[in-house]
Each structure stands twice: as structure tokens, then as C-alpha cells.
């Protein structure tokens, strides 16, 4: 799955390289900047994968955590070992979080690497108008990846909870991914304004603040708080469900 994620920036970079100049203002944001600065491949790739690709892969990993073991039948042997239900849940969530951290990092780093290989790399002009060197730009790219990793932790907790509800991993994966899409659809309906700040996907694309000088940390902190809330709620639900679950698979 990490390979599939890594393919996104490569695809973007190669497509832009092979086609003639991209007309400004068409396609995903920053796409037209790639030919001038290869580092933008990473940013563009992250931007493209946020709505579906990243939640999809994270949903698959988080949905598989407990339900995957149950589906294989290994869950009963882990519990009889005895692994301890709380310990098992924590280790499984840690695994899902590790993936949520790795996934955007892979997209960003592969993007930066392929961008540097195919296009010139130079100073980057930030949204605030300031210009920073390539090294610091790379740092900002990693910051965006970290922001997205935090964004995906709430979804991982939801996936973990879904995973404790069923013995069929595909069901848990699908429902997690569907929930992330539903959340984004709700976020797009202006009639539901009051709900938006509570949706776990609401701040997913708000990493633009990290591209200002000085960095505005507000959105990062708001996002962290919101994701923390989701982790607490769905972590507790997963705990409540799993601790009393009859393991019959």
C-alpha cells in the first residue's frame, strides 16, 4: 500500500514532465508550479491524496487491526496466550498510527525525490510572499506530512472501533472509508455550518498555514485538539466494545 501511495507523486511528476507546460490555474493547486520547482511535486501529491487515497489506505489498515485477526482466527490464540485485551488494543492502535504517520511521509519524500530528479529545485516563495531556501522548504514539506499524520489519527481510532464490531475485516475497512467520505461530503454542505468544526475531516486541508512566514500554528493546534477528541471517544468505544466482546471467531 505504501508503494501505491509512492506511485502518486511519481505519476504526477512524470505526467507533468511529459506534457507541455501546464496552464496556470488548471488542475490541483500548485500543479503549474512543479516545472519551476520540483519540491512542489510533494505538496501537490499530498493535496491530491488527502480526500480519498490517504483515508482509504488508513481505513484499510485501521479496519484490519482487530477484525483481521478475528477473520484469520488468530485473535483467540493471541487472547489465550494471553496477550491481554487492553494491551492488544493499544498495540493494534499503535500499529495503525505508525501507518498513518508513514503514509503521508512516504508521499512527501517520494514526491520531493522525484521532483528533484526531474525538475530544478530552488528557493520557494511562500503564501506570505517570503522566500525560503530549498532545505527549509523540505522541512515545511515534512511539517505538512506531520500535519496530515495527525489528521489521520482520528480516522485510525474510528477504524479501530469499527474493527472491534465485526469479524469481517472488509466490513470494518469499508465502513471506515465510507465514514471519511461522508464526513467530507457533510463538510461541503454549507447548510450544515454548525456541524463543520466537529467533523474529523474538517481541518484536513488546512495545512496552508504551514506555508506562511512565520508559521501560523493555530490550525495545527485546533486540528490536534479535534483529533485528540476523536481518539478519546472512539478509543473509549473500542475499549468498551472489545473488553466485553465474546471472541467466537
Amino acid at each position, binding site marked *: 500500500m505504501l508503494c501505491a501511495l509512492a506511485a502518486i507523486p511519481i505519476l504526477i511528476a512524470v505526467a507533468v514532465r511529459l506534457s507541455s507546460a501546464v496552464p496556470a490555474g488548471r488542475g490541483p493547486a500548485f500543479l503549474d508550479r512543479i516545472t519551476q520547482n520540483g519540491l512542489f511535486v510533494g505538496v501537490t501529491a499530498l493535496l491530491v491524496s488527502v480526500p480519498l487515497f490517504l483515508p482509504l489506505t488508513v481505513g484499510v489498515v485501521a479496519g484490519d487491526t482487530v477484525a483481521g485477526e478475528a477473520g*484469520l482466527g488468530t485473535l483467540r*490464540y493471541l*487472547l489465550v*496466550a*494471553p496477550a491481554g485485551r487492553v494491551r492488544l488494543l493499544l498495540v493494534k492502535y499503535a500499529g495503525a498510527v505508525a501507518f498513518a504517520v508513514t503514509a503521508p511521509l512516504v508521499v512527501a519524500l517520494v514526491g520531493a525525490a522525484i521532483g528533484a530528479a526531474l525538475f530544478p529545485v530552488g528557493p520557494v516563495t511562500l503564501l506570505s510572499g517570503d522566500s525560503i531556501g530549498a532545505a527549509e522548504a523540505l522541512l515545511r514539506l515534512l511539517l505538512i506530512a506531520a500535519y496530515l499524520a495527525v489528521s489521520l489519527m482520528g480516522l485510525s481510532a474510528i477504524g479501530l472501533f469499527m474493527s472491534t464490531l465485526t469479524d469481517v475485516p472488509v466490513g470494518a475497512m469499508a465502513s471506515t472509508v465510507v465514514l471519511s467520505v461522508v464526513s467530507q461530503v457533510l463538510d461541503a454542505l454549507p447548510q450544515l455550518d454548525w456541524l463543520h468544526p466537529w467533523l474529523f475531516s474538517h481541518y484536513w486541508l488546512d495545512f496552508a498555514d504551514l506555508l506562511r512566514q512565520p508559521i501560523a500554528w493555530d490550525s495545527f493546534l485546533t486540528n490536534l485538539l479535534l483529533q485528540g477528541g476523536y481518539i478519546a471517544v472512539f478509543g473509549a468505544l473500542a475499549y468498551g466494545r472489545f473488553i466485553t466482546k*465474546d471472541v467466537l471467531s
Partner: protein
Amino acid sequence: MTAVGPATELSIETSGLSKRFGHQLAVDGVDLAVPKGSVFGFLGPNGSGKTTTIRLMLGLAAATSGSVRLLGQDMPGQLHEVLPRVGALVEGPAFYPFLSGAANLHRLDAADPHVPAATRTARVHSALERVGLTHAADKKVRAYSLGMKQRLGIANALLAPRELLVLDEPTNGLDPQGTREIRSLVRSLAANGATVFVSSHLLAEVEQICTHAAIMSAGRLVAQGTLAELRQAGQARIRVLTPDPGAAAEVLARLGLSAAVDGAATPAAPGSTDSNDAGEVLYAPLPAAATAAGAGAVAPEAVVEALVAAGVRVRGFATEQVSLEERFVALTGEGFDVVQ
């Protein structure tokens, strides 16, 4: 059902154990008493609640009512102290198909925080050796046969020294050699002082290796005790092989025994309906007192004497204990009429 003396230490003790799934009572008031050091056969037709009982015992599922004590400690309350001393094979083996056999055992062993990691490789190796899987240790489990997976499952139960082994259908999918190996493995475990709790529907298997047994039917425990006690509950009988079934039946009737001709049903004389030299087989239940050689009862040797005196050509004679199978069928129902 025989009560086990209070002096006997019990490895497994359940009282009034019940589990309800929706409207169905899968386990209904089960009172198991498994003495320490015994090889305990847990019998029952498919769907009689054996595996559910095992799941309740191991804390995988919560009982609707009743309690379980394993190795003298409460389950699931003291689960973390008890389970490291228990090895289990529950409802068939389950492994990660993309990992090798040894890697699977490493992973499951790592799941238990109570065992030392330093000795892991050695313990995995010796467990694989005990079940004869050393040659396939590095093969992916995906490529294992059913019997090899079964052995790997047993190896998992043997990863650490255990005081109690709970083996659910341990010989499932094994070839005759494998079955024999498992039998001797179970015996050696018992000889080392471990209690082995074997669930099975293979009665011959249980008769060969077990010291005690319990029989489940439709979620209830219908019999429990030592094998001898279980057999005694049934009636002994005599078996007469003779070409003069009519005369023999008369003699037996005079002795107060009701004979039944059962030529075809016995494997010893298949097809006895045609002109078979050996003759026919007669069965007659022997009153319980006879086996104990009580006064006034018919001794088996007296039956032979009477038969010979009456000119019946006796070609075979035996007294038979009721087999566990007959006892099992008597308790749980015949054929597809098994109680659900």
C-alpha cells in the same frame, strides 16, 4: 454422573456454567470436574456446546451465569495469572498464512508478556521438534497441509511448560501416524504431571488415551466420571457365535437371558445372512449382578456349559463391556436424531 471426592484436586472446575446466544442456550448448567493429572475426554456430538464451553473456560467469551475455576484460580478474574500456565488449541489451528511456521510461533509467543524472550528461539525449536515439524519450520504456513497446521497448533500449545492443556479436536485432519504421535504426546504430557483436557467426537480415540470422560448433549453435561464408571453405567452382555441360533436362543431364554440375533450388524461376521459356516451371532444382555459374580446371577461360564450341554455348537463366546460408543449413542441419540 459420579461426584469426585472433595480430596481430589481439580484442574478445571465449572459450576452451573451457562451461555445463552439470543434464544439458544448453547451451554446449560455445566458442572465439570477435571481431576489434576487426568487425561480428560470431553465428548459430544457436533453442536453440543463443547467448543463454547472451552471458550468460556479460557475467558474468550463471558458466561451468562455460573463460574469457572482453572488450576484453582477464578476465570476470567485471574486470567493473567492462569492462562500462562495453560496451553490451548481451540477450534482448529489458526495462523498467518504469509509467515513461516516458526515465525508464527515466535509471534504468538511474543504476545504473552509472561514468558522470557531470551529463550524464545529455543522454545519454538523444541515445540516444533515435539510435533515433528522441524523440517517445515521455515516453510510458509500457506503451504502447510491440514495435518501440519494441526501439529503447529499443538506446538503453539506446548511453547511453554504447561500445567493444563486444553486440546479441541487435536487429531482432526491427521493421518494415522500423526494420530498415534499425538496419542503418545498426550500420554507423555500426562506422565509429566500435566492435566490434558481433550475434546473430541472420536470415541475410539478417547477410549485409548483418556482416564476420565464427560459427555455433552445439547448443551448439557449428561455423564461424567472415569472411563470404567461410564462403561459400568451401561450393561455388559454376552456374545455367542453359533450355527444353531434357534437352539441357542432357547437355552439362553431358559437361563433368563433374552437373546437377539444380530448377524449383519457386527463387523466380525459381515454378510452372515448367506450360507456362512461360522453361523450367526447372538447377543444377550447380562444382568448387572452377573459381572460382579453375585449370588443367583448367571455366570458367563455357566451359560457356555448350558449351551454345550444342550448340543449347541458354540464357535465363539465372549462377554463384552458396553463400548463407550454405545454409551455415547444411548446418551446423545442415534444417527441424525441427535438432540439439538
